[in-house]
């Protein structure tokens, strides 16, 4: 990293739907770059120094919680771990994630979407005995490799990048979308979940489900946690097409 200071130009989408008469627009802010600066630092800088009304969401600021996804120069990604130094021309254009309810400026309501998704795919272990498990006894064994594989899929942080990166989802609002597929893949892999393929078909066996996915692979290419969307959606599709 060089010591020379740059002036970064942030072009930021501004719109507050709560405010009467407000209209969507792009506003440019200039920020002096610091070494190791992330978009998280820069946006806070703008809010504190220039415009206290600027809305955005950060929680962990460490790329862990999935709060801060936005479209950075055309890529849906986690803003908190995006270093400003990666943009050679110092021009950074920020848009809120498309496909979600806009709260204001760069803040979108991913939480509401994700809860609905979880309810739709019934994102929990289906085992009628789960609540009767005797927790004084040894836990049920699990193959160490299976546990690792489940964790691979469980790493999703519900950031919504895959949802915004999917043109199918944007054209068809009811489309389950990749984050839902990842969740389903996770549970169908889990031996503790007693759902059968037929049960899963009820959730995703239609054109709003896995058969609606047109394999655009935006999900795969923009997932900040590198989840294996392509192989897993293919796996689900093969599984579902075989359901009698």
């Amino acid at each position, binding site marked *: 990293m060089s010591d020379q200071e740059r002036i970064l130009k942030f072009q930021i989408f501004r719109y507050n739907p709560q405010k009467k008469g407000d209209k969507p627009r792009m506003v440019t802010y200039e920020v002096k770059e610091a070494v190791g600066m992330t978009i998280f630092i820069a946006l806070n800088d703008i809010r504190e120094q220039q415009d206290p009304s600027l809305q955005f969401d950060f929680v962990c*600021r460490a790329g862990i919680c999935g709060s801060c996804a936005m479209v950075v120069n055309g890529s849906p990604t986690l803003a908190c771990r995006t270093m400003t130094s990666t943009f050679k021309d110092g021009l950074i254009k920020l848009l809120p994630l498309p496909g979600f309810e806009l709260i204001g400026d760069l803040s979108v309501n991913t939480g509401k979407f994700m809860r609905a998704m979880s309810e739709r795919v019934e994102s929990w272990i289906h085992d009628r005995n789960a609540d009767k498990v005797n927790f004084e006894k040894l836990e049920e064994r699990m193959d160490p490799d299976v546990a690792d594989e489940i964790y691979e899929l469980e790493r999703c942080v519900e950031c919504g990048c895959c949802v915004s990166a999917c043109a199918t989802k944007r054209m068809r609002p009811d489309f389950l979308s990749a984050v839902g597929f990842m969740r389903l893949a996770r549970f169908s892999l889990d031996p503790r979940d007693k759902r059968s393929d037929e049960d899963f078909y009820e959730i995703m066996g239609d054109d709003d489900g896995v058969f609606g996915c047109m394999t655009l692979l935006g999900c795969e290419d923009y997932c900040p946690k590198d989840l294996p969307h392509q192989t897993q959606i293919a796996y689900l599709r093969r599984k579902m097409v075989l359901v009698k």
Partner: protein
Amino acid sequence: MKVIYTDSLVIGGGLAGLRVAIASMQRGYDTIVLSLVPAKRSHSAAAQGGMQASLGATVKGDGDDEEVHFGDTVRGSDWGCDQDVARMFVNTAPKAIRQLTAWGVPWSRVSAGDREVVMNGKKVTITEKKEAHGLISSRDFGGTKKWRTCFTSDGTGHTMLYSMDNKAIQMGIPVHERKEAIALIHEGGVCYGAIVRDLITGELMAYVAKATTIATGGYGRLYAITTNSVISEGIGNAIALETGIATLGNMEAVQFHPTAIVPVGILTTEGCRGDGGLLLDKDGYRFMPDYEPDKKELASRDVVSRRILEHMRKGKGVASRYGDHIWLDITLLGRKHIEKNLREVKEICEYFLGIDPAKEYIPVRPTQHYSMGGIRTKATGESQTLKGLFAAGEASCWDLHGFNRLGGNSVAETVVAGMIVGEFVADYCAQNPLNVSGTTIEYFMKQEEQKITDLLTRDSGENPFELKVQMQKIMMDDVGIFRNAKDLEKAVEELKVLNQRAKNIALRNRISSSNPELVEAIRVPKMIKVAQCIAYGAMLRTESRGAHSREDYPARNDKDWLKRTLTTWKDDSTGLPEVTYEDLDIMKMELPPASRGYGVDNTVHHPDTARREAQIEEIKKANPGADRFKLQELLNPIPIPEKFKGKNERIGRGFK
């Protein structure tokens, strides 16, 4: 006026809050969870390293049980913890983890046969038992005698929180997101819910409940550099404090984690050292064995943090534009291990430092990490002074951790406290009718409305962002790892001034709906108050205990200070909180105070210590046939709910 009624109101959607909500819902009480952010984004998700529970499935955990866990926890707390609570905790932790297993957490499992691990800088082969194959594995963590920290790679908190929230969703527990509790409603010494602001619309609402649980996490953001999330601002503690009735306990007990990356303060988990990582100085020299020949890098967190600072003060730190740091070396663990078990660490290094931790050292420095202090509760989780107010998780001072908590004991606490406190919350709901008067609700509502109106109409005044930065700087510089009278007195004075200035905040963006500046303006005065509790408590405590380390009083002083700090703020117009103390009764301790085994023992002992030791010997002699369960009951009978009384099974020894 929008009023929402429920039985059990839980403020906080992290691990602790959700678990309490699940407990009260399971018992059939109407439950609502409030959260600033979607529950799955709560700070619990950031816990990487693991959860302590004495399952003892790996060979290195062989022989582990409740007794060993108990000893580690009490010693780790520097005898500051509540031993009843520690007892309930260690007995319930195995149950908690097994329940979470049934709910879906994909814990890393034991794989039978040989595997290579790094211990004390060397590669060693250990052989896992065949019978243990497929059981929950565990790793080494600081301050523990056994490998007890169960984990899922280094995304433990994430997987725990996801399973917990999924369970809550399954049960249909409503989580009202983007809602901030800004005041508690109380009448006649009983709490009845909270005044809540919708962070999107700005609307104020009253959530009226029989039992109110605060599970709002820690207050790391009172410090300039912290591993905590940006929402860990101690608002839950503040609203309890502002009742003037509820007390905060041990607020000066603030933990610094030895290894957060420089400069941003993002944590690299203790798992790095647990798995064999080393700390090196500017000469690439491993210095910890010089200070702590016994536990080396894996001494308790407070100890390691202080040793690092000591070493840096000797000029051995690596100079950088952000001040000195030292190196964390995990290259010796090998790429395969890092990519499998320390993935998040790898990602963090790549994205925030631009380095490959399998090849390069990580620049780290001790950084604010955990708040042992919080809302003081009884062992049931209920406030000692404000009925109907419960607290759980990092926001509470249930007092499992005393003056220093062990790594991995915190997420374990959230879940265990959630289970236990949740039962008492449900009991409370069963036993108490909701009879709060409409005027009381209205009174609190009006009060908050007025404050917001004042903020929105004041023409000129202080900038909330600036006040916050100043407060954070004071805390960082003067109420940090090493403390002394001079700095602390300065901090107390300066914070007092900030407190006054915070009464005069004016906004540039004057809209009442979603408005980050208004959010800040509501929070900052609260945060300053909490900061004052910490600084003031630290100034008054003239001893060193756990994470509270006074340069001018380096000894632990059981004689005068074996007591818990209690802080209240009865009168808003005074510039300082009121501090009182609660004695810890050695004569009831299962494990009387002793040396923690770090450095020279210069403890000033309490006369009761020897008496209690003798008494314990007597009890043991009088009951020669007593097994460990019987003995525990004799020494430390605990009020644990019936559900969690059973013994825990372990491989190789059954329920023994």
